[in-house]
């Protein structure tokens, strides 16, 4: 059986606020899945439901085919970082990991391993109360990795990390996924996931907005647009329009074409004897693509404030 997360028609309401409204998706192993949405979109609630912290009003969330709360020794199957600040300030990092290890029958030796892995071994015996935000984040990741689980959920793991830490965590996430694990990473900043996530689940107002491969999303956002730079803009526009493209001028010596693949644009221009300095496929940034996606799903948009 493959490791998995499956969320099926989950609905959760807190008093008058509907946090998650019929959300369905599944997360596959072997790739990093980004879980994105603006603040208040329901990401954290969904993760709490997956981790069995909150009971859904309707629907269910399964991890490895089972509700979280019926897992035995769950840390060896699922690791999660939900709130890095949730450490007793008087307890050392090592002791924090130690009780977690004891709770799931994990050998003491493993505590040292994850401390090394996350780079906080030197601070392991200090009171966690004196830790910086970044160190707490690393401690939280160490706790998630403690049971060497096949499923990982990380809520805003980049928070508080320095640039070196960000590079480290990206590499870590990619390598964990490459080992065939399920890796679900939430973020409200799309740029954090750029170059890390292979798959994207976007939510807004508790509902699913998108569930697709990052490459598909980018392609959709790019809409097959080709950008051309040429000194003979007018001639080029006429030629391309005659060839069936939708042409628009985007600058003094620039234009963009939709509806024609890049090779065809190149052929048409060369055939018409129009010189061009540059011809490139337009690539939307993940941020752009995401903004496009969530435009309707934003609850607290800038203008709404």
């Amino acid at each position, binding site marked *: *059986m*493959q*490791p998995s997360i499956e969320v099926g028609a989950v609905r959760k309401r807190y008093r008058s606020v509907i946090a998650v409204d019929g959300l369905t998706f599944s997360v596959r*192993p072997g790739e990093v899945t980004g879980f994105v949405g603006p603040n208040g979109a329901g990401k954290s609630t969904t993760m*709490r439901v997956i*981790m*069995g*912290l*909150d*009971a859904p009003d309707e629907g269910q969330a399964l991890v*490895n085919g089972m509700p*979280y*709360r*019926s*897992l*035995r*020794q*769950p*840390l*060896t*199957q*699922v690791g*999660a970082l*939900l*709130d890095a*600040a*949730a*450490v*007793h*300030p*008087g*307890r*050392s990092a090592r*002791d*924090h990991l*130690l*009780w*977690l290890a*004891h*709770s*799931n*029958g*994990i*050998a003491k*030796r*493993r505590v040292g*391993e994850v401390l090394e892995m996350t780079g906080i071994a030197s601070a392991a015996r200090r009171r966690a109360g004196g830790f910086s935000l970044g160190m707490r984040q690393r401690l939280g990741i160490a*706790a998630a990795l403690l*049971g*060497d689980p*096949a*499923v990982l959920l990380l809520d805003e793991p980049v928070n508080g990390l320095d640039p070196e830490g960000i590079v480290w965590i990206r590499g870590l996430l990619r390598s964990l996924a490459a*080992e*065939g*694990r399920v890796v679900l990473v939430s973020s409200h900043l799309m740029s954090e996931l750029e170059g890390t996530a292979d798959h994207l689940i976007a939510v807004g107002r508790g509902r699913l907005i998108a569930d697709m491969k990052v490459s598909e999303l980018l392609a959709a956002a790019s809409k097959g647009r080709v950008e051309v730079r040429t000194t003979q803009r007018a001639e080029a526009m006429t030629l391309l329009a005659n060839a069936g493209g939708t042409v628009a001028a985007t600058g003094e010596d620039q234009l963009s074409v939709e509806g024609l693949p890049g090779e065809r644009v190149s052929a048409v221009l060369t055939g018409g004897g129009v010189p061009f300095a540059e011809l490139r496929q337009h690539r939307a940034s993940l941020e752009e693509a995401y903004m496009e996606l969530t435009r309707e799903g934003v609850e607290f948009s800038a203008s709404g404030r």
Partner: protein
Amino acid sequence: MSGPEPGLGRRSWRRHGGGPVGGALHAEWTKLRTVPSTGWLVLGIVALTVGLGLAMTGTLSRDGCESPCLEDTVRLSLFGVRLSQAAVVVLAVLAVGNEYATGMVHTSVMALPRRAWALAGKFAVVAVTVLVAATVAVGVSLLVGRWVLPGRGFTAANGHPPLSLADEPTRRAAIGTVLYLVLIGLLSAGVAVLVRDTAGAITGVLVLLYVAPLVATLVSNARWERWLHRYTPMDAGLAVQVTRHLHPSDIGPWAGLGVLAVYAAVAVVAALVVFEVRDA
């Protein structure tokens, strides 16, 4: 059940067996012993019990006592639990309340999703810790009483043989006092789960414990006074310490401890149920 996907790294460190209960006990014990305050509170339980007991027996005087003087020297030697129970309350409430205050309860519940078992493990660890501290505290208090009392004129010659566990009522008072503190710990831990707030739980339990006996000193209506002595947790529970002048109208020693046990049981059971059902 084994891991879903083999070959994801080394698994040699994984130990099977132990079960959810063993894991919970081990984890809770690690949690309790790795917080600095626990040690101080255990020390406090012993020191306060012994210190106040010494203050009581040390200032005891036979003047003004009728002859034959029938002071309940066992009860006076163990008087310190009236103070040290506050340390027990703090220890038990903090063991639970800290998790809510820091949000660590989420981590705990994720590590041990069979919540009622996990919480039972916590209660067990708290109970055993209090049991050990209380046993030491009670033992030392009785030893101190045995050593101090003859010097205050309470000798075998006038009806006060040295305190000894060979004496049935003394043994009952000693064992009962240890159990009293354990039950106070369980009651406090249960209330802390229900309230999810350290300050609120401590204030609530201390008011429950301490206000009723004070009301009883003031209330001059005999029926109410008897009711308060019989059915409030502290007065009823400490009836187990009485070794002399047992009034027929007073609640019996074990029955009194039973009343406290009912309070503790209600708190513990309610806590287990609520913890299982409530969103963490």
